């Protein structure tokens, strides 16, 4: 009975309903988009970093994170490669040798991180192949090297020139090799660009006397939200193929600084979301309260006609909940179907000006991106329901406490 009455009331005053409804719909759209924005920005940051460094998951010899030396290795056999590739959830895998070397040309010399990569597999995981600004990425050629632009400048070499790499091999011998500069890369950080050189995995294994071994296998996951699961299956798959104990670490362990940054940013974003919720809740509360106040006379008449205050409370509460429910449904529909949501996801807002240039320089994709996940509308629904339940409480109580005579007189 109450529900039917409430429904009729909602239908009767279209303008009031429209305003309240608009407030709710609007709130839902805002909340959904704000969460989508947070998720989008974070996913983008993770993606950029993951592709610049060790992948979503990093497979290494046990203890590599604590002791990044040639002592810790993975035997990259065809069997291991097959096991890695066949692991469910693994999208791509790139084996790498991480070593240090002195590069020199005449009297110019520079200590660098020498990265040995598989020219075919690397592009599946990282963006290094796209970072070549002059020349070309590594291929089938022998003894070719890619240098950071600033490194090439410091060594005073250009495409086609030779540089000498000098290092201590795994076998503790001094090792030397001449490499031809095949390309120049634009690294995300200036410091990295001064101290990074890429050679092929095969050449790196020869230089470091690291036959069949690699320092790490960087893996890209199909679904970055299920890293734990993928990590477990990977650990199980590789343990059967390896004589040495191996570690599988997800990116937050490999890059704790990024993980911390995101945690702090999340705390910040949830504070923002909390504030948004407060503003929205008051908006809705005010709207409902206003509509109750404007209906004093009508409610007074109902009380005078013998309706119990408890029933008035229920009526107003039901009205509010119906309105909020309706608004939530409309809002979610609008937020999800809104071309904006789809459009944003596919077409992130570009960042402009100096910040754009700088972001690019440091390897951030210069966009503010949106991303919708299943969790997002669920959270919005939860929040809006809580808001509706709470926001309708006071106006309903207010309405129920009105005395018939006062209500009539107040007009």
């Amino acid at each position: 009975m109450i529900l039917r009455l409430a429904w009729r009331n909602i239908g009767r005053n279209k303008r009031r309903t429209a305003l309240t409804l608009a407030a709710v719909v609007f709130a839902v759209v805002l909340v959904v988009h704000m969460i989508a924005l947070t998720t989008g920005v974070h996913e983008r940051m993770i993606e950029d970093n993951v592709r610049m460094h060790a992948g979503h998951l990093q497979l290494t010899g046990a203890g590599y994170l604590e002791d990044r030396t040639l002592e810790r290795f993975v035997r990259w056999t065809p069997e291991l490669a097959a096991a890695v590739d066949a692991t469910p959830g693994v999208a791509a895998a790139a084996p790498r040798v991480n070593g240090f070397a002195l590069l020199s040309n005449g009297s110019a010399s520079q200590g660098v991180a020498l990265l040995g990569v598989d020219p075919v597999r690397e592009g599946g995981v990282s963006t290094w192949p796209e970072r070549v600004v002059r020349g070309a990425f590594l291929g089938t050629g022998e003894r070719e090297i890619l240098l950071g632009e600033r490194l090439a400048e410091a060594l005073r070499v250009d495409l086609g020139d030779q540089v000498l790499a000098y290092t201590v091999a795994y076998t503790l011998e001094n090792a030397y090799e001449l490499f031809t500069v095949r390309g120049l890369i634009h690294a995300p950080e200036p410091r990295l660009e001064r101290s990074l050189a890429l050679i092929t995995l095969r050449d790196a294994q020869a230089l470091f006397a690291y036959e069949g071994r690699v320092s790490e296998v960087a893996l890209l996951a199909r679904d970055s939200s299920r890293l734990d699961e993928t990590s477990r299956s990977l650990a199980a798959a590789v343990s059967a193929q390896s004589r040495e104990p191996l570690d599988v670490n997800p990116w937050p362990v490999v890059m704790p600084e990024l993980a911390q940054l995101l945690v702090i940013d999340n705390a910040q974003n949830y504070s923002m979301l909390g504030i948004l919720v407060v503003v929205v809740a008051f908006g809705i509360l005010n709207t409902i309260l206003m509509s109750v106040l404007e209906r004093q006379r009508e409610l007074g008449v109902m009380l005078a006609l013998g309706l119990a205050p408890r029933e008035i409370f229920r009526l107003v509460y039901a009205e509010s909940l119906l309105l909020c429910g309706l608004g939530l449904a409309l809002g979610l529909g609008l937020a999800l179907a809104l071309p904006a949501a789809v459009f944003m996801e596919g077409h992130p807002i570009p960042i402009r000006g100096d910040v754009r240039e700088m972001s690019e320089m440091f390897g951030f994709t210069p966009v503010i991106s949106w991303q919708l996940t299943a969790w997002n509308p669920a959270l919005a629904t939860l929040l809006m329901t809580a808001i509706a339940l709470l926001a309708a409480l006071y106006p309903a109580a207010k309405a129920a406490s009105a005395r018939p005579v006062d209500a009539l007189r107040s007009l």
Partner: protein
Amino acid sequence: MRRLAALGLATAFAAAAAAQDARLEPPPAQPSARALAEQVEATFRGEASFLDATMSVTSPRLPAPRRVRFQSWDDRGGKRSFIRILEPAKDRGTAFLKLHPNLWSWVPRVERTIRVPPSMMLQSWMGSDFTNDDLVRESSVLDDYDHRWLGVEPSHQGARAFVIEYRPREGAPVVWGRIVAWIDPVKLAPLRQEYYDEAGVKLRVMTLGGFRAVGDRQYPHHWSMLPLDKPGHETSIEVNAIRFDEKFDAEIFTHRNLTRRE
């Protein structure tokens, strides 16, 4: 080579003293511990020395010990030295020239000279338990330590040996807590050095043997360095020839010599 030995001293030695002291006889009144240390230093010292030696490095990483034969010309007074690798064949001709304060390395296979930066000078030399720094360190190590008698061991490898302790002075660039050295009472040459950390844990043992007369001194022709914290690692050196107080041709310490083909 003196440098390598000095290094051994310079960077380290010591004894599980308390336990050992019980087995040791009291020391003689003369010579003093300091005088003994000076004698040990004198065994290796020479203004201009030539060395031909073979170094073997044993490591779990290597299927078999790796042997490197080299010759070195060390002109201490002129603050310069020259080292050339003879074996293995793949490294033959590789040479190091130190002209204070720079160190150059010549790599014949790629026909290039590299100026070795300080950071690399401090790294392991040719994969051994010695560093480039050990090859080029100029200062005397005598003043880095206080010396003290521990006693006389009646039967160290079947013979009497003086046992003294080197304690690094505060601030001296020595990582060890102490070094214990066994010294031949007749030749006044070092036989064994044990390196301890400050907590008293023995970390390295260097043994010297194969004494032969070189001029008026007894020189150890066999050395071995055993790092106890790295199981399976050992570096040993066989001295093929050593000569002290040579008269060096200035031509040796030149870039031309560095890049010379034999």
